[in-house]
Protein backbone atom coordinates (compact mmCIF):
# COMPACT_ATOMS: atom_id res chain seq x y z
CA UNK A 1 0.00 0.00 0.00
CA UNK A 2 2.76 2.40 1.00
CA UNK A 3 4.36 2.10 -2.37
CA UNK A 4 1.21 2.21 -4.45
CA UNK A 5 0.55 5.19 -6.66
CA UNK A 6 -2.82 6.84 -6.02
CA UNK A 7 -3.77 8.75 -9.14
CA UNK A 8 -6.91 10.65 -10.10
CA UNK A 9 -7.48 12.09 -13.55
CA UNK A 10 -10.03 14.91 -13.88
CA UNK A 11 -11.40 15.27 -17.40
CA UNK A 12 -14.39 16.25 -19.45
CA UNK A 13 -15.52 12.77 -20.42
CA UNK A 14 -15.28 11.80 -24.09
CA UNK A 15 -13.36 14.93 -25.05
CA UNK A 16 -10.31 14.59 -27.27
CA UNK A 17 -8.05 15.88 -24.50
CA UNK A 18 -9.50 13.37 -22.07
CA UNK A 19 -8.86 10.48 -24.38
CA UNK A 20 -5.36 11.67 -25.12
CA UNK A 21 -4.51 12.20 -21.46
CA UNK A 22 -5.82 8.81 -20.41
CA UNK A 23 -3.97 7.11 -23.25
CA UNK A 24 -0.67 8.87 -22.42
CA UNK A 25 -1.02 8.12 -18.74
CA UNK A 26 -1.92 4.45 -19.06
CA UNK A 27 0.83 3.82 -21.56
CA UNK A 28 3.47 5.23 -19.26
CA UNK A 29 2.10 3.71 -16.06
CA UNK A 30 1.71 0.30 -17.63
CA UNK A 31 5.32 0.48 -18.78
CA UNK A 32 6.81 1.78 -15.55
CA UNK A 33 4.32 1.12 -12.76
CA UNK A 34 2.54 -2.02 -13.80
CA UNK A 35 0.48 -3.33 -10.90
CA UNK A 36 1.59 -0.53 -8.60
CA UNK A 37 -1.00 2.13 -9.28
CA UNK A 38 -4.66 2.90 -8.80
CA UNK A 39 -6.21 5.25 -11.32
CA UNK A 40 -9.56 6.88 -10.91
CA UNK A 41 -11.09 8.95 -13.70
CA UNK A 42 -13.52 11.72 -12.77
CA UNK A 43 -15.75 13.60 -15.17
CA UNK A 44 -15.88 17.20 -13.91
CA UNK A 45 -19.22 17.81 -15.60
CA UNK A 46 -20.71 14.86 -13.70
CA UNK A 47 -18.96 15.51 -10.42
CA UNK A 48 -18.17 19.21 -10.01
CA UNK A 49 -18.07 18.68 -6.24
CA UNK A 50 -15.06 16.36 -6.60
CA UNK A 51 -13.32 18.97 -8.75
CA UNK A 52 -14.20 21.55 -6.11
CA UNK A 53 -12.80 19.42 -3.29
CA UNK A 54 -9.57 18.84 -5.20
CA UNK A 55 -9.33 22.50 -6.26
CA UNK A 56 -9.17 21.58 -9.94
CA UNK A 57 -9.15 24.50 -12.36
CA UNK A 58 -7.89 23.04 -15.62
CA UNK A 59 -8.81 19.89 -17.47
CA UNK A 60 -7.33 17.43 -17.90
CA UNK A 61 -5.65 17.42 -14.47
CA UNK A 62 -3.86 14.48 -13.00
CA UNK A 63 -3.51 14.46 -9.22
CA UNK A 64 -0.85 12.25 -7.67
CA UNK A 65 -2.09 11.79 -4.09
CA UNK A 66 0.51 9.18 -3.23
CA UNK A 67 3.35 9.09 -2.89
CA UNK A 68 3.65 12.47 -1.24
CA UNK A 69 4.07 15.31 -1.96
CA UNK A 70 0.84 15.80 -3.84
CA UNK A 71 1.49 16.79 -7.39
CA UNK A 72 -0.91 18.13 -10.01
CA UNK A 73 -0.17 17.71 -13.68
CA UNK A 74 -2.17 19.92 -15.99
CA UNK A 75 -2.73 19.16 -19.65
CA UNK A 76 -3.22 16.20 -21.94
CA UNK A 77 0.02 14.63 -20.62
CA UNK A 78 1.58 14.72 -24.08
CA UNK A 79 4.80 16.10 -22.63
CA UNK A 80 6.40 12.85 -21.50
CA UNK A 81 9.27 14.34 -19.47
CA UNK A 82 6.93 16.48 -17.46
CA UNK A 83 4.72 13.50 -16.76
CA UNK A 84 7.73 11.39 -15.75
CA UNK A 85 8.87 14.12 -13.41
CA UNK A 86 5.41 14.54 -11.97
CA UNK A 87 5.22 10.85 -11.21
CA UNK A 88 8.74 10.85 -9.80
CA UNK A 89 9.90 8.50 -12.52
CA UNK A 90 12.55 10.59 -14.13
CA UNK A 91 16.05 9.11 -14.08
CA UNK A 92 16.70 5.38 -14.01
CA UNK A 93 14.66 4.18 -11.06
CA UNK A 94 11.23 3.19 -12.31
CA UNK A 95 9.65 2.86 -8.84
CA UNK A 96 11.47 5.58 -6.95
CA UNK A 97 9.32 7.11 -4.20
CA UNK A 98 11.76 9.87 -3.72
CA UNK A 99 13.76 11.89 -6.09
CA UNK A 100 16.46 14.52 -5.63
CA UNK A 101 14.12 17.31 -6.64
CA UNK A 102 11.79 16.71 -3.70
CA UNK A 103 12.13 19.11 -0.85
Amino acid at each position, binding site marked *: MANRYQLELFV*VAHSTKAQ*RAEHNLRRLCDAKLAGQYDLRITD*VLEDAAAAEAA*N*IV*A*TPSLVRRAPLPVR*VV*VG*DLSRRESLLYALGLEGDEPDADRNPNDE
Partner: protein
Amino acid sequence: MNDVRRSMDKLSTGMAGFDTIAFGGLPKGRSTLLSGTAGSAKTVFAMQFLVKGAELGENGVFVTFEETPADLRRNMLSFGWDCARLEEEHRLAFVDASPRPEEERIEAGAFDFAALVARIEACVRRTGARRVVLDSIGAMFAQFKDPAAVRRELYRISAALKKLDVTAIVTSERTEDYGAISRHGMEEFVADNVVLLRNTLEEEKRRRTIEILKFRGTDHQKGEYPFVVSDEGVVVIPLSSIQLRQKSTTLRIASGSEELDAMCGGGFFRDSIILVSGATGTGKTLMVTAFMAGGIAKGERCLAFCFEESRQQFFRNAAGWGFDFEQLERDGKLKVVTDYPEIMPLENHLIRMKRIIAEFKPDRVAIDSLSALERNSTTRSFREFVISLTAFVKDQEMAGLFTSTTPTLLGGTSVTEAHISSICDSIILLRYVEVYGEMRRALTVLKMRGSAHDKEIREFNIDGSGMHLGKAFRNVTGILAGHPMQLAMAPEELDRFHEMFPHD
Protein backbone atom coordinates in the same frame (compact mmCIF):
# COMPACT_ATOMS: atom_id res chain seq x y z
CA MET B 1 -31.54 59.00 -12.15
CA ASN B 2 -35.14 57.97 -11.82
CA ASP B 3 -35.37 57.63 -15.56
CA VAL B 4 -36.79 54.18 -16.19
CA ARG B 5 -34.89 53.67 -19.41
CA ARG B 6 -31.69 54.35 -17.58
CA SER B 7 -32.24 52.00 -14.68
CA MET B 8 -34.12 49.07 -16.21
CA ASP B 9 -30.94 47.49 -17.51
CA LYS B 10 -29.01 48.10 -14.30
CA LEU B 11 -28.57 46.01 -11.20
CA SER B 12 -28.39 48.05 -8.02
CA THR B 13 -25.14 47.12 -6.33
CA GLY B 14 -26.42 48.25 -2.95
CA MET B 15 -23.48 50.64 -2.74
CA ALA B 16 -25.27 53.99 -2.72
CA GLY B 17 -22.53 56.26 -3.99
CA PHE B 18 -21.56 53.90 -6.77
CA ASP B 19 -25.14 53.38 -7.92
CA THR B 20 -25.48 57.16 -8.16
CA ILE B 21 -22.54 57.63 -10.50
CA ALA B 22 -23.49 54.45 -12.38
CA PHE B 23 -27.07 55.73 -12.88
CA GLY B 24 -28.57 52.79 -11.07
CA GLY B 25 -25.89 50.12 -10.83
CA LEU B 26 -23.96 47.65 -12.94
CA PRO B 27 -25.23 46.49 -16.34
CA LYS B 28 -27.53 43.60 -15.49
CA GLY B 29 -26.65 40.12 -16.67
CA ARG B 30 -23.25 41.25 -17.89
CA SER B 31 -19.69 41.21 -16.73
CA THR B 32 -17.81 44.35 -15.73
CA LEU B 33 -14.06 44.53 -15.63
CA LEU B 34 -12.85 46.19 -12.43
CA SER B 35 -9.26 47.15 -12.94
CA GLY B 36 -6.80 48.85 -10.61
CA THR B 37 -3.26 48.89 -9.34
CA ALA B 38 -2.16 46.84 -6.34
CA GLY B 39 -3.92 48.07 -3.20
CA SER B 40 -6.65 49.93 -5.06
CA ALA B 41 -9.38 48.07 -3.13
CA LYS B 42 -10.57 45.83 -5.97
CA THR B 43 -11.20 42.85 -3.72
CA VAL B 44 -13.03 44.96 -1.12
CA PHE B 45 -15.24 46.48 -3.81
CA ALA B 46 -15.95 43.07 -5.32
CA MET B 47 -16.77 41.46 -1.98
CA GLN B 48 -18.97 44.39 -1.00
CA PHE B 49 -20.93 43.83 -4.21
CA LEU B 50 -21.72 40.30 -3.02
CA VAL B 51 -22.36 41.19 0.62
CA LYS B 52 -24.75 44.00 -0.35
CA GLY B 53 -26.36 41.62 -2.81
CA ALA B 54 -26.92 39.09 -0.03
CA GLU B 55 -28.62 41.84 1.99
CA LEU B 56 -30.89 42.51 -0.99
CA GLY B 57 -31.73 38.82 -1.28
CA GLU B 58 -29.43 38.16 -4.23
CA ASN B 59 -26.96 35.39 -3.54
CA GLY B 60 -23.39 35.56 -4.70
CA VAL B 61 -20.47 33.40 -5.74
CA PHE B 62 -16.91 34.55 -5.17
CA VAL B 63 -14.36 32.83 -7.39
CA THR B 64 -10.94 33.49 -5.93
CA PHE B 65 -7.76 32.97 -7.91
CA GLU B 66 -5.37 34.59 -5.52
CA GLU B 67 -6.31 34.71 -1.86
CA THR B 68 -7.67 31.66 -0.10
CA PRO B 69 -11.27 31.75 1.13
CA ALA B 70 -9.89 31.55 4.69
CA ASP B 71 -7.84 34.71 4.13
CA LEU B 72 -10.79 36.48 2.55
CA ARG B 73 -13.13 35.56 5.40
CA ARG B 74 -10.63 36.93 7.88
CA ASN B 75 -9.83 40.12 5.94
CA MET B 76 -13.45 40.99 5.31
CA LEU B 77 -14.35 40.78 8.99
CA SER B 78 -12.69 44.17 9.41
CA PHE B 79 -15.54 45.65 7.37
CA GLY B 80 -18.08 43.82 9.48
CA TRP B 81 -18.79 41.31 6.71
CA ASP B 82 -19.26 37.85 8.15
CA CYS B 83 -18.64 35.64 5.11
CA ALA B 84 -18.80 32.44 7.13
CA ARG B 85 -22.30 33.27 8.34
CA LEU B 86 -23.43 34.17 4.82
CA GLU B 87 -22.03 30.85 3.65
CA GLU B 88 -23.92 28.97 6.34
CA GLU B 89 -27.07 30.73 5.23
CA HIS B 90 -26.30 29.73 1.62
CA ARG B 91 -26.24 33.35 0.52
CA LEU B 92 -22.56 33.37 -0.37
CA ALA B 93 -20.26 30.66 -1.67
CA PHE B 94 -16.63 30.52 -2.62
CA VAL B 95 -15.13 28.73 -5.57
CA ASP B 96 -11.54 28.28 -4.52
CA ALA B 97 -9.14 28.44 -7.43
CA SER B 98 -6.29 29.86 -5.40
CA PRO B 99 -2.98 28.05 -5.67
CA ARG B 100 -2.26 25.54 -2.92
CA PRO B 101 1.31 26.05 -1.79
CA GLU B 102 1.68 22.43 -0.70
CA GLU B 103 0.87 21.22 -4.19
CA GLU B 104 3.29 21.32 -7.02
CA ARG B 105 1.66 22.06 -10.34
CA ILE B 106 3.27 20.83 -13.53
CA GLU B 107 2.11 21.56 -17.06
CA ALA B 108 2.26 18.70 -19.51
CA GLY B 109 0.35 19.55 -22.64
CA ALA B 110 -2.85 21.21 -23.84
CA PHE B 111 -5.50 22.12 -21.26
CA ASP B 112 -8.73 24.05 -20.85
CA PHE B 113 -10.67 25.51 -17.89
CA ALA B 114 -13.68 23.24 -18.27
CA ALA B 115 -13.25 22.10 -14.67
CA LEU B 116 -13.40 25.65 -13.37
CA VAL B 117 -16.39 26.49 -15.54
CA ALA B 118 -18.14 23.36 -14.29
CA ARG B 119 -17.43 24.36 -10.69
CA ILE B 120 -18.70 27.91 -11.20
CA GLU B 121 -21.84 26.68 -12.94
CA ALA B 122 -22.51 24.09 -10.26
CA CYS B 123 -22.00 26.66 -7.52
CA VAL B 124 -24.22 29.28 -9.18
CA ARG B 125 -27.00 26.68 -9.66
CA ARG B 126 -26.66 25.33 -6.15
CA THR B 127 -26.88 28.77 -4.50
CA GLY B 128 -29.20 30.36 -7.05
CA ALA B 129 -26.64 33.15 -7.30
CA ARG B 130 -27.40 36.32 -9.26
CA ARG B 131 -23.99 37.87 -8.67
CA VAL B 132 -20.55 36.47 -9.39
CA VAL B 133 -17.07 37.81 -8.70
CA LEU B 134 -13.83 36.60 -10.30
CA ASP B 135 -10.85 37.92 -8.33
CA SER B 136 -8.42 38.35 -9.88
CA ILE B 137 -7.95 36.91 -13.31
CA GLY B 138 -4.40 38.23 -13.53
CA ALA B 139 -3.42 35.52 -11.06
CA MET B 140 -4.25 32.90 -13.68
CA PHE B 141 -1.37 34.16 -15.76
CA ALA B 142 0.92 33.49 -12.85
CA GLN B 143 -0.49 30.01 -12.32
CA PHE B 144 -0.27 28.89 -15.93
CA LYS B 145 2.63 29.38 -18.26
CA ASP B 146 0.84 29.74 -21.59
CA PRO B 147 -0.76 33.24 -21.70
CA ALA B 148 -2.52 32.58 -25.01
CA ALA B 149 -4.21 29.50 -23.53
CA VAL B 150 -5.19 31.40 -20.37
CA ARG B 151 -6.70 34.22 -22.40
CA ARG B 152 -8.65 31.79 -24.56
CA GLU B 153 -9.92 29.95 -21.51
CA LEU B 154 -10.95 33.16 -19.76
CA TYR B 155 -13.18 33.89 -22.78
CA ARG B 156 -14.74 30.52 -22.14
CA ILE B 157 -15.55 31.61 -18.57
CA SER B 158 -16.91 34.90 -19.87
CA ALA B 159 -19.23 33.08 -22.25
CA ALA B 160 -20.36 30.76 -19.46
CA LEU B 161 -21.17 33.72 -17.20
CA LYS B 162 -23.26 35.28 -19.93
CA LYS B 163 -25.18 32.05 -20.35
CA LEU B 164 -25.82 31.88 -16.62
CA ASP B 165 -27.32 35.40 -16.85
CA VAL B 166 -25.49 36.60 -13.76
CA THR B 167 -24.13 40.08 -13.15
CA ALA B 168 -20.42 39.71 -12.66
CA ILE B 169 -17.41 41.72 -11.55
CA VAL B 170 -14.11 40.51 -12.94
CA THR B 171 -11.09 42.12 -11.31
CA SER B 172 -7.78 42.65 -13.01
CA GLU B 173 -4.47 44.34 -12.20
CA ARG B 174 -3.02 47.40 -13.79
CA THR B 175 0.61 48.37 -13.50
CA GLU B 176 -0.04 52.13 -13.57
CA ASP B 177 -2.94 54.33 -12.48
CA TYR B 178 -2.84 56.07 -15.83
CA GLY B 179 -1.91 53.60 -18.54
CA ALA B 180 -3.14 50.39 -20.10
CA ILE B 181 -6.52 49.32 -18.74
CA SER B 182 -5.17 46.05 -17.48
CA ARG B 183 -2.22 43.74 -17.72
CA HIS B 184 -2.28 40.88 -20.19
CA GLY B 185 -4.73 42.80 -22.41
CA MET B 186 -7.64 41.51 -20.39
CA GLU B 187 -9.94 44.42 -21.22
CA GLU B 188 -11.02 42.35 -24.21
CA PHE B 189 -12.25 39.75 -21.77
CA VAL B 190 -15.20 41.93 -20.86
CA ALA B 191 -14.75 44.90 -23.13
CA ASP B 192 -18.35 46.03 -22.70
CA ASN B 193 -18.02 47.46 -19.23
CA VAL B 194 -14.92 48.81 -17.57
CA VAL B 195 -14.56 50.44 -14.14
CA LEU B 196 -11.19 51.74 -12.95
CA LEU B 197 -10.04 52.16 -9.36
CA ARG B 198 -7.12 54.47 -8.75
CA ASN B 199 -4.92 55.04 -5.75
CA THR B 200 -2.65 57.91 -6.63
CA LEU B 201 -0.14 59.94 -4.73
CA GLU B 202 -0.91 63.65 -4.96
CA GLU B 203 0.89 66.31 -2.95
CA GLU B 204 2.25 63.49 -0.81
CA LYS B 205 -1.24 62.30 -0.01
CA ARG B 206 -3.09 59.19 -1.12
CA ARG B 207 -6.15 59.83 -3.16
CA ARG B 208 -8.55 57.11 -4.22
CA THR B 209 -10.84 57.59 -7.17
CA ILE B 210 -13.23 55.50 -9.19
CA GLU B 211 -14.04 56.03 -12.84
CA ILE B 212 -16.60 54.28 -14.98
CA LEU B 213 -14.77 54.12 -18.28
CA LYS B 214 -17.60 52.54 -20.22
CA PHE B 215 -20.92 50.76 -19.91
CA ARG B 216 -21.97 49.51 -23.29
CA GLY B 217 -25.33 50.83 -24.39
CA THR B 218 -26.16 52.53 -21.13
CA ASP B 219 -25.37 55.82 -19.50
CA HIS B 220 -23.24 56.69 -16.49
CA GLN B 221 -21.39 59.64 -14.93
CA LYS B 222 -18.08 60.39 -16.60
CA GLY B 223 -14.81 61.15 -14.91
CA GLU B 224 -13.17 60.34 -11.61
CA TYR B 225 -15.03 60.34 -8.31
CA PRO B 226 -13.30 60.12 -4.97
CA PHE B 227 -13.95 57.17 -2.73
CA VAL B 228 -12.74 56.00 0.63
CA VAL B 229 -12.21 52.61 2.16
CA SER B 230 -13.88 53.05 5.53
CA ASP B 231 -14.83 50.50 8.16
CA GLU B 232 -17.99 49.94 6.10
CA GLY B 233 -16.05 49.19 2.94
CA VAL B 234 -15.87 51.27 -0.20
CA VAL B 235 -17.84 54.52 -0.06
CA VAL B 236 -18.02 56.46 -3.32
CA ILE B 237 -18.56 60.20 -3.01
CA PRO B 238 -20.80 61.21 -5.92
CA LEU B 239 -20.01 64.89 -6.27
CA SER B 240 -21.69 66.51 -9.23
CA SER B 241 -24.85 64.48 -8.91
CA ILE B 242 -25.69 65.97 -5.53
CA GLN B 243 -24.95 69.58 -6.21
CA LEU B 244 -28.12 70.94 -7.67
CA ARG B 245 -30.87 69.07 -5.90
CA GLN B 246 -31.14 71.31 -2.90
CA LYS B 247 -34.36 72.92 -1.92
CA SER B 248 -34.23 76.36 -0.50
CA THR B 249 -36.30 77.98 2.13
CA THR B 250 -37.12 81.43 3.39
CA LEU B 251 -37.29 80.21 6.97
CA ARG B 252 -35.03 82.26 9.20
CA ILE B 253 -33.14 81.05 12.22
CA ALA B 254 -31.39 82.95 15.00
CA SER B 255 -27.66 83.40 14.68
CA GLY B 256 -27.24 83.65 18.44
CA SER B 257 -26.83 87.40 18.34
CA GLU B 258 -29.80 89.67 17.87
CA GLU B 259 -27.60 92.39 16.47
CA LEU B 260 -26.17 90.04 13.88
CA ASP B 261 -29.68 88.79 13.05
CA ALA B 262 -30.64 92.36 12.35
CA MET B 263 -27.59 92.84 10.13
CA CYS B 264 -28.54 89.75 8.16
CA GLY B 265 -32.05 91.02 7.59
CA GLY B 266 -33.68 88.84 10.23
CA GLY B 267 -31.34 85.93 10.89
CA PHE B 268 -29.70 83.21 8.81
CA PHE B 269 -31.71 81.06 6.42
CA ARG B 270 -32.43 77.62 7.79
CA ASP B 271 -30.84 75.46 5.11
CA SER B 272 -27.95 77.69 4.31
CA ILE B 273 -24.22 77.53 4.76
CA ILE B 274 -22.56 80.42 6.53
CA LEU B 275 -18.84 80.96 6.27
CA VAL B 276 -17.17 82.95 9.04
CA SER B 277 -13.72 84.10 8.07
CA GLY B 278 -11.17 85.77 10.27
CA ALA B 279 -7.68 85.77 11.67
CA THR B 280 -6.87 83.96 14.88
CA GLY B 281 -8.55 85.52 17.90
CA THR B 282 -11.11 87.56 15.99
CA GLY B 283 -14.00 85.64 17.53
CA LYS B 284 -14.75 82.74 15.19
CA THR B 285 -15.10 80.18 17.94
CA LEU B 286 -17.34 82.62 19.79
CA MET B 287 -19.54 82.84 16.70
CA VAL B 288 -19.75 79.06 16.70
CA THR B 289 -20.58 79.05 20.40
CA ALA B 290 -23.27 81.69 19.94
CA PHE B 291 -24.66 79.83 16.92
CA MET B 292 -24.94 76.64 18.98
CA ALA B 293 -26.38 78.40 22.02
CA GLY B 294 -28.83 80.35 19.87
CA GLY B 295 -30.11 77.13 18.36
CA ILE B 296 -30.43 75.31 21.66
CA ALA B 297 -32.36 78.28 23.11
CA LYS B 298 -34.91 77.74 20.32
CA GLY B 299 -35.09 74.01 21.04
CA GLU B 300 -32.90 72.97 18.12
CA ARG B 301 -30.34 70.18 18.25
CA CYS B 302 -26.81 71.35 17.61
CA LEU B 303 -23.65 69.58 16.52
CA ALA B 304 -20.15 71.06 16.52
CA PHE B 305 -17.00 69.63 14.99
CA CYS B 306 -13.91 71.21 16.51
CA PHE B 307 -10.58 70.63 14.86
CA GLU B 308 -8.64 73.39 16.52
CA GLU B 309 -9.41 73.05 20.20
CA SER B 310 -9.90 70.24 22.68
CA ARG B 311 -13.31 69.57 24.20
CA GLN B 312 -12.15 71.00 27.50
CA GLN B 313 -11.02 74.21 25.84
CA PHE B 314 -14.23 74.55 23.89
CA PHE B 315 -16.34 73.92 26.98
CA ARG B 316 -14.22 76.30 29.07
CA ASN B 317 -14.59 79.08 26.51
CA ALA B 318 -18.34 78.54 26.34
CA ALA B 319 -18.54 78.59 30.14
CA GLY B 320 -16.65 81.89 30.07
CA TRP B 321 -19.48 83.32 27.99
CA GLY B 322 -22.08 81.84 30.26
CA PHE B 323 -23.04 78.64 28.42
CA ASP B 324 -22.90 75.29 30.19
CA PHE B 325 -22.20 73.15 27.15
CA GLU B 326 -21.27 70.12 29.22
CA GLN B 327 -24.73 70.04 30.73
CA LEU B 328 -26.38 70.66 27.36
CA GLU B 329 -24.44 67.77 25.91
CA ARG B 330 -25.53 65.53 28.77
CA ASP B 331 -29.11 66.60 28.05
CA GLY B 332 -28.64 65.45 24.48
CA LYS B 333 -29.27 68.89 23.01
CA LEU B 334 -25.71 69.38 21.90
CA LYS B 335 -22.97 67.16 20.60
CA VAL B 336 -19.37 68.27 20.38
CA VAL B 337 -16.90 66.18 18.37
CA THR B 338 -13.24 67.08 18.64
CA ASP B 339 -10.50 65.53 16.55
CA TYR B 340 -7.09 66.20 15.18
CA PRO B 341 -7.44 66.72 11.42
CA GLU B 342 -4.36 64.57 10.92
CA ILE B 343 -5.79 61.36 12.36
CA MET B 344 -7.24 60.31 9.00
CA PRO B 345 -7.50 61.42 5.38
CA LEU B 346 -10.06 64.09 4.58
CA GLU B 347 -12.27 61.66 2.70
CA ASN B 348 -12.55 59.55 5.82
CA HIS B 349 -13.37 62.63 7.89
CA LEU B 350 -16.15 63.32 5.42
CA ILE B 351 -17.65 59.86 5.72
CA ARG B 352 -17.35 59.97 9.50
CA MET B 353 -18.87 63.44 9.80
CA LYS B 354 -21.75 62.47 7.52
CA ARG B 355 -22.36 59.42 9.67
CA ILE B 356 -22.33 61.44 12.90
CA ILE B 357 -24.70 64.01 11.34
CA ALA B 358 -27.02 61.26 10.15
CA GLU B 359 -27.05 59.66 13.60
CA PHE B 360 -27.44 62.80 15.70
CA LYS B 361 -29.85 64.51 13.26
CA PRO B 362 -29.02 68.04 14.33
CA ASP B 363 -30.76 71.21 13.17
CA ARG B 364 -27.45 73.05 13.14
CA VAL B 365 -23.94 71.98 12.33
CA ALA B 366 -20.78 73.95 12.95
CA ILE B 367 -17.23 73.23 11.88
CA ASP B 368 -14.36 75.04 13.55
CA SER B 369 -12.40 75.30 11.35
CA LEU B 370 -12.34 74.26 7.74
CA SER B 371 -8.81 75.61 7.49
CA ALA B 372 -7.60 73.04 9.99
CA LEU B 373 -9.02 70.30 7.78
CA GLU B 374 -7.50 71.87 4.73
CA ARG B 375 -4.01 71.47 6.18
CA ASN B 376 -4.47 67.76 5.83
CA SER B 377 -5.58 67.53 2.23
CA THR B 378 -4.89 68.34 -1.37
CA THR B 379 -6.57 71.29 -3.02
CA ARG B 380 -8.83 69.04 -5.02
CA SER B 381 -9.78 66.79 -2.14
CA PHE B 382 -10.59 69.82 -0.04
CA ARG B 383 -12.86 71.32 -2.64
CA GLU B 384 -14.65 68.01 -3.07
CA PHE B 385 -14.96 67.70 0.67
CA VAL B 386 -16.60 71.10 1.01
CA ILE B 387 -18.96 70.51 -1.91
CA SER B 388 -19.98 67.12 -0.64
CA LEU B 389 -20.44 68.18 2.97
CA THR B 390 -22.36 71.37 2.19
CA ALA B 391 -24.62 69.47 -0.18
CA PHE B 392 -25.24 66.86 2.50
CA VAL B 393 -25.97 69.45 5.19
CA LYS B 394 -28.36 71.36 2.94
CA ASP B 395 -30.03 68.20 1.79
CA GLN B 396 -30.89 67.42 5.41
CA GLU B 397 -32.35 70.92 5.75
CA MET B 398 -29.85 71.96 8.37
CA ALA B 399 -27.99 75.20 8.85
CA GLY B 400 -24.22 75.02 8.69
CA LEU B 401 -21.74 77.49 10.08
CA PHE B 402 -18.16 76.88 9.03
CA THR B 403 -15.20 78.92 10.09
CA SER B 404 -12.09 79.69 8.12
CA THR B 405 -8.86 81.08 9.48
CA THR B 406 -7.07 83.73 7.45
CA PRO B 407 -3.31 83.44 7.46
CA THR B 408 -2.61 87.12 8.10
CA LEU B 409 -3.85 89.18 11.01
CA LEU B 410 -4.97 92.10 8.93
CA GLY B 411 -7.20 91.62 5.93
CA GLY B 412 -6.35 88.94 3.45
CA THR B 413 -8.26 85.87 2.41
CA SER B 414 -7.47 82.25 2.99
CA VAL B 415 -7.18 79.55 0.40
CA THR B 416 -10.16 77.99 2.11
CA GLU B 417 -12.34 80.90 1.06
CA ALA B 418 -11.14 80.86 -2.50
CA HIS B 419 -12.55 77.35 -2.78
CA ILE B 420 -15.77 77.67 -0.93
CA SER B 421 -16.98 81.24 -1.13
CA SER B 422 -19.17 80.41 -4.11
CA ILE B 423 -20.60 77.38 -2.33
CA CYS B 424 -21.54 79.31 0.81
CA ASP B 425 -24.78 81.22 1.02
CA SER B 426 -23.55 83.78 3.49
CA ILE B 427 -20.12 85.09 4.30
CA ILE B 428 -19.26 86.96 7.47
CA LEU B 429 -15.84 88.55 7.77
CA LEU B 430 -14.16 89.16 11.10
CA ARG B 431 -11.17 91.46 10.88
CA TYR B 432 -8.70 93.27 13.08
CA VAL B 433 -8.63 97.03 12.59
CA GLU B 434 -5.85 99.21 13.84
CA VAL B 435 -7.32 102.52 14.98
CA TYR B 436 -5.00 105.07 16.53
CA GLY B 437 -2.59 102.47 17.80
CA GLU B 438 -5.27 100.17 19.10
CA MET B 439 -6.41 96.80 17.75
CA ARG B 440 -10.15 96.56 17.43
CA ARG B 441 -12.34 93.96 15.85
CA ALA B 442 -14.63 94.50 12.92
CA LEU B 443 -17.47 92.43 11.50
CA THR B 444 -19.20 92.70 8.18
CA VAL B 445 -21.74 90.62 6.32
CA LEU B 446 -20.14 90.29 2.90
CA LYS B 447 -22.77 88.13 1.28
CA MET B 448 -26.25 87.02 2.20
CA ARG B 449 -27.77 85.01 -0.60
CA GLY B 450 -31.45 85.75 -1.16
CA SER B 451 -31.77 88.61 1.26
CA ALA B 452 -30.98 92.23 1.91
CA HIS B 453 -28.40 92.80 4.59
CA ASP B 454 -26.50 95.52 6.37
CA LYS B 455 -23.34 96.31 4.44
CA GLU B 456 -21.62 98.29 7.13
CA ILE B 457 -18.37 97.31 8.72
CA ARG B 458 -19.29 97.24 12.38
CA GLU B 459 -17.19 97.17 15.45
CA PHE B 460 -17.29 93.83 17.17
CA ASN B 461 -16.61 93.49 20.88
CA ILE B 462 -16.12 90.42 22.96
CA ASP B 463 -16.68 90.49 26.68
CA GLY B 464 -17.71 88.14 29.45
CA SER B 465 -21.27 87.97 28.16
CA GLY B 466 -20.33 87.17 24.57
CA MET B 467 -20.35 89.15 21.36
CA HIS B 468 -21.63 92.64 20.82
CA LEU B 469 -21.86 94.64 17.65
CA GLY B 470 -21.10 98.31 17.94
CA LYS B 471 -21.24 101.17 15.54
CA ALA B 472 -19.94 101.21 12.02
CA PHE B 473 -16.36 102.25 11.42
CA ARG B 474 -17.26 105.53 9.78
CA ASN B 475 -13.90 107.16 9.49
CA VAL B 476 -11.75 104.18 8.62
CA THR B 477 -11.31 102.77 5.16
CA GLY B 478 -9.35 99.84 3.76
CA ILE B 479 -10.30 97.46 6.58
CA LEU B 480 -11.04 94.49 4.39
CA ALA B 481 -7.96 95.03 2.28
CA GLY B 482 -5.88 94.93 5.44
CA HIS B 483 -4.72 98.54 5.17
CA PRO B 484 -7.00 100.54 7.45
CA MET B 485 -6.64 104.29 7.02
CA GLN B 486 -8.23 106.97 9.10
CA LEU B 487 -10.17 109.48 7.12
CA ALA B 488 -10.02 113.15 7.86
CA MET B 489 -13.53 113.74 6.55
CA ALA B 490 -15.91 115.31 8.98
CA PRO B 491 -18.57 112.92 10.23
CA GLU B 492 -21.39 115.01 8.71
CA GLU B 493 -19.74 114.82 5.32
CA LEU B 494 -19.32 111.10 5.72
CA ASP B 495 -23.01 110.71 6.50
CA ARG B 496 -23.82 112.68 3.37
CA PHE B 497 -21.50 110.41 1.42
CA HIS B 498 -23.32 107.39 2.71
CA GLU B 499 -26.67 108.85 1.76
CA MET B 500 -25.44 109.08 -1.83
CA PHE B 501 -25.21 105.28 -1.85
CA PRO B 502 -28.22 104.14 0.09
CA HIS B 503 -28.36 100.48 1.12
CA ASP B 504 -30.30 98.46 -1.36
